[in-house]
């Protein structure tokens, strides 16, 4: 393992929660962690922050050992890792200013210096006017802004954000996301989120955690364009079929073959992934034939509005059709229809095996 001076690295397991994760963050890198509920995202942050003890493993931050199972354990307050939770958790008995000054005070700064630092960070989040208020007098969005200032004022070497916008009003979230983009620039941060927009806007890299394991990681755009996991495909809003690469496209594990455009790296005979957008799927009541096309019989399992279109789900696959097309089709649950996708709309690329991650 190569751990240079300006790197955060963790390789740890929490046995009783079935979590085993290995992750590295370069200096000034922001990584988003996405995954289904219960994947272990918050547990991972807890282990890094020092609020949970891993059953085994090792972690280092800029050359400092954070823990080395069984031998070393640095308590949370000595890690220089701040954790911003879903709820702001501002100390209700302190003013906003003293909340933000809490980190510098704890680090040994004088009251005056700590308050000066607090004013600076309150200015950074454009919340200086709330300095003398009590947390009880703030709205949810204001409180979370203060919480961001408080975390930054502690000058952490690593900032952890645990779904920082999940508890906020949808109208407030975009403003806070903009603020986070500004303050996270050039900063090392790990942000757990369920919103792919957060990953796109805030993160350089995306990590998908499922059932306690990292199932996928890479630059955000690449993961969303070439998702390996079903979860990432869902995030990107893509239909995904995994199987074996063929000369024409891909054949799935259950024998369904699909024609598509092979990515340069795709090698026939190797494991592969095929993706296509739901909007690229046409739906017909009868099978149709013609130029290089894929035709699948599909049993409708779900119908839902999707923008100004209707999304027709058939198991794991989805098709978006215009409302007028839908009216002609008159789809119903359990009805058998035909999904038709032009081969040119299907991209086939190699599947990465777990070890390659």
């Amino acid at each position, binding site marked *: 393992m190569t751990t240079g001076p300006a790197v955060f690295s963790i390789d740890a397991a929490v046995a009783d929660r079935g979590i085993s994760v290995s992750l590295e963050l370069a200096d000034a890198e922001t990584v988003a962690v996405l995954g289904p509920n219960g994947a272990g995202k918050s547990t991972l942050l807890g282990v890094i*922050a*020092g*609020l949970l003890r891993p059953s085994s493993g090792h972690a280092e931050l800029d050359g400092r050992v954070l823990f080395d199972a069984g031998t070393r354990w640095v*308590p*949370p*307050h*000595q*890690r*220089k*890792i*701040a*954790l911003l*939770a879903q*709820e*702001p*958790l*501002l*100390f*209700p*008995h*302190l003013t906003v200013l003293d909340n933000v000054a*809490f*980190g510098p*005070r*704890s*680090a040994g700064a004088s009251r005056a210096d700590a308050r000066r630092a607090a004013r600076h960070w309150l200015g950074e989040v454009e919340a200086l006017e709330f300095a003398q208020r009590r*947390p*009880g*007098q*703030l*709205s*949810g969005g204001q*409180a979370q802004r203060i919480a961001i200032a*408080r*975390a930054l004022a*502690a000058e*952490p070497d690593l900032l*952890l954000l645990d779904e920082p916008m999940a508890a906020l009003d949808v109208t407030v979230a975009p403003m806070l996301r903009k603020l986070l983009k500004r303050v996270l620039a050039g900063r090392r941060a790990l942000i757990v989120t369920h919103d792919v927009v957060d990953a796109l806007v805030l993160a350089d890299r995306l990590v998908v955690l499922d059932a306690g394991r990292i199932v996928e990681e890479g630059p955000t755009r690449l993961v969303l364009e070439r998702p390996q996991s079903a979860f990432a495909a869902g995030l990107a809003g893509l239909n995904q079929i995994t199987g074996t690469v063929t000369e024409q496209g891909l054949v799935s594990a259950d024998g369904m073959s699909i024609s598509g455009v092979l990515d340069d790296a795709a090698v026939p005979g190797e494991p592969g992934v095929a993706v296509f957008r739901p909007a690229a799927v046409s739906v017909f009541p009868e099978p149709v034939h013609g130029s290089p096309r894929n035709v699948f019989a599909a049993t409708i399992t779900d119908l839902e509005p999707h923008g100004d279109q209707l999304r027709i789900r058939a198991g794991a696959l989805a098709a978006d059709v215009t409302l007028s097309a839908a009216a002609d089709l008159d789809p119903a649950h359990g009805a058998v229809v035909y999904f038709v996708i032009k081969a040119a709309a299907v991209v086939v690329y190699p599947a990465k095996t777990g070890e390659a991650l």
Partner: protein
Amino acid sequence: MRGAGRGHGTITIPLWIWVFAAAGGFFILLPLAAMVTRVNWPQFVPLVTSVPSLTALGLSLRTSAVSTVLCLVLGVPLAMVLARGQFPGQRLLRSLVLLPLVLPPVVGGIALLYTFGRRGLLGSSLSVLGIQITFSTTAVVLAQTFVALPFLVLSLEGSLRSAGTRYEAAAATLGAGPGTVLRRVTLPLVLPGLASGAVLAFARSLGEFGATLTFAGSLEGVTRTLPLEIYLQRETDPDTAVALSLVLVLIAVVIVGLTFRRTTSGLLKSGRTRDA
């Protein structure tokens, strides 16, 4: 949400509940009223300001204050350990700490006697050092602390549990060591619980009778606290006993009033942050 919290007024309580509740209220108020009717009002002030009365009252207030301080010194760490610690025998320790709450005070007094008495577990060593605890004001304080400690521990442990550890975890990730977290986060957050626990401990100390009489005796000016004085006067001078009883009732009313106000305002304060 504010409206929803108060919305339980819409639930209709069965009529018979009201009847029993009224009976319960009367059961508490009626004896107090009965006592008030027996107060010799013209003599009230001279009775409660007589030398023995003032001596007993002064002793009671002083010893109860010291007991409350002792309860804080011993009870805050106990509550912390019970609410936040994880160690084998924790449940057993909690049951044992609460024991004085259910024990007849006279049994507590006997237990203290066999601990600090002249031939007690620690008393024999202490008497070698020339320290005599039994039948001294120190014994009064120990007896009161013994019976009052669970009140403080219970109240504070409850506050600590309901406050949760999330603020403490946030403080730790901001770089605050355990001492700073305790001083700047934990204690301020549980201050209402701590205050009501201390007030309850003071009240329990003030009313302590059985353990004090058994362990400390009834020496005027040394160990004869107000409840002991009232019990003594009951035989010979019922007017004084009733007058002093009224004084204790008034103190109790003030204490209950204080505790109630503090806890409710504390709840309101922490409740407001939830609205945010």
